[in-house]
């Protein structure tokens, strides 16, 4: 998981408004809002970062221990990349 690359589903409409990511799923037209850390992960999910690199950034930028950052990032990415939501795409690095 840690060496996988995370990217946003290009079908999702989204905007960051006042440090809060607002996402509209193309699949079911539902709106999702992300909190501050979730929004930062969404920003980092531009296809250039692995899960591990995202964990490193969250660990650097927020007052959180490494273990918690890893657990939370993996849980968050896994949830948004689930078949049910399909907001993120996790793929093998080139």
């Amino acid at each position: 998981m840690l060496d996988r690359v995370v990217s946003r589903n290009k079908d999702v409409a989204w905007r960051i408004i006042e440090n809060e990511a607002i996402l509209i799923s193309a699949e079911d037209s539902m709106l999702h809002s992300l909190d501050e850390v979730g929004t930062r992960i969404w920003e980092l999910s531009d296809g250039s970062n692995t899960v591990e690199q995202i964990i490193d950034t969250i660990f650097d930028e927020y007052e959180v221990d490494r273990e918690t950052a890893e657990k939370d990032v993996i849980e968050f990415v896994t949830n948004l990349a689930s078949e049910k939501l399909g907001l993120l795409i996790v793929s093998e690095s080139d």
Partner: protein
Amino acid sequence: MDSTKQPLLYHAEATAVKKRIPYNVIFEVTRRCNLDCTMCYVVSHDSAHPDELSTDEVKDVLDQLAAAGTLKLTFSGGEPFMRPDFLDLVEYARTLAFSIDILTNGTLIGPQTVQRLKELAVWQVSISLLGARSETHDGITGKSGSFSRAVQALRLLKEAGIKPRIKTLVMKRNFDEYPDIIAMAKQMGIPYSLDPTVSSRNDGNLDTLDLNLSENQFKALINNPSLGPRSLSFNGEDLQSSRKERLEGYLCKAGISFCDISWNGDVLPCMQYQQSAGNVRKQRFIDIWRESPLFIMLRNARRHDLPECKDCELLPLCFRCPATAFLETGDPLAKYETACIQARLMDEVRVSRADPSNENSEIQSNP
């Protein structure tokens, strides 16, 4: 960290209203149209205009809108598909992650276009349907075959999994058919919305107002118990969202979280409010949005401050619209006949519902 999922309408828009972010923008990318609808407020022409924004200019404006925080983007016209570059513009807009709705007459949407729209993950395509029979629809649009093409487009979109919507302006000429339009929408599994207000034309011509429903027709429509609060819209707002704005006191969303960009780059409060707040060829969009005196005036105006309306007992039932007020009187804050009539009719329906002798008395009042 958390992801919360909630109904589409209010959360993001409430933030946008609070922060004055242009969350919802209509972009009229052309005034060209291949139809000639009797009631259309756009004075359109079936030919290009030298002032129409170029492909690069439209893309530049889209960049600026994305930076300003716009999420919901509606492409309109005229007929947007009249632009040869229209699908390129949609594709560019999707790279900027807008949620896209397209307002169209549907006549230029064939299987290949539907496939492209599907690939681009367009959120919704709204098609104007002005009758349940070709004679009525084509009679209003002035073009034979426009009904069958619109219906075909609705079917293709539905089959492709794109969200279509039927939009119907209900007026004298098609009033008898609105129940059949609803039946058709339900049979096709497509959502619909009815708008009972014909506006004056955007060049100030008031000739279209005679097309509006008679008083009895209007009352029958708003008193139809089978219509939900989201089935009827007034000046582009459904009853539910309009009620919320009335409580907050704004005139409407124009200048608060919404605006319109015209085919020539003028930034307008809305499609019908033909007073330019500035032009994107001369100023950055965000500067117009933040600093134009017109938008500042709309942001500061409140319904309870309107000089001619503030003491009116019908104000809570009134769907007055600053654009229509401006078109009908030249003053966006003035009272105007169409709103006064509709508010009075709303009140008559409300009173009749409250009357225990009325067979519809158990129906909850929409407003």
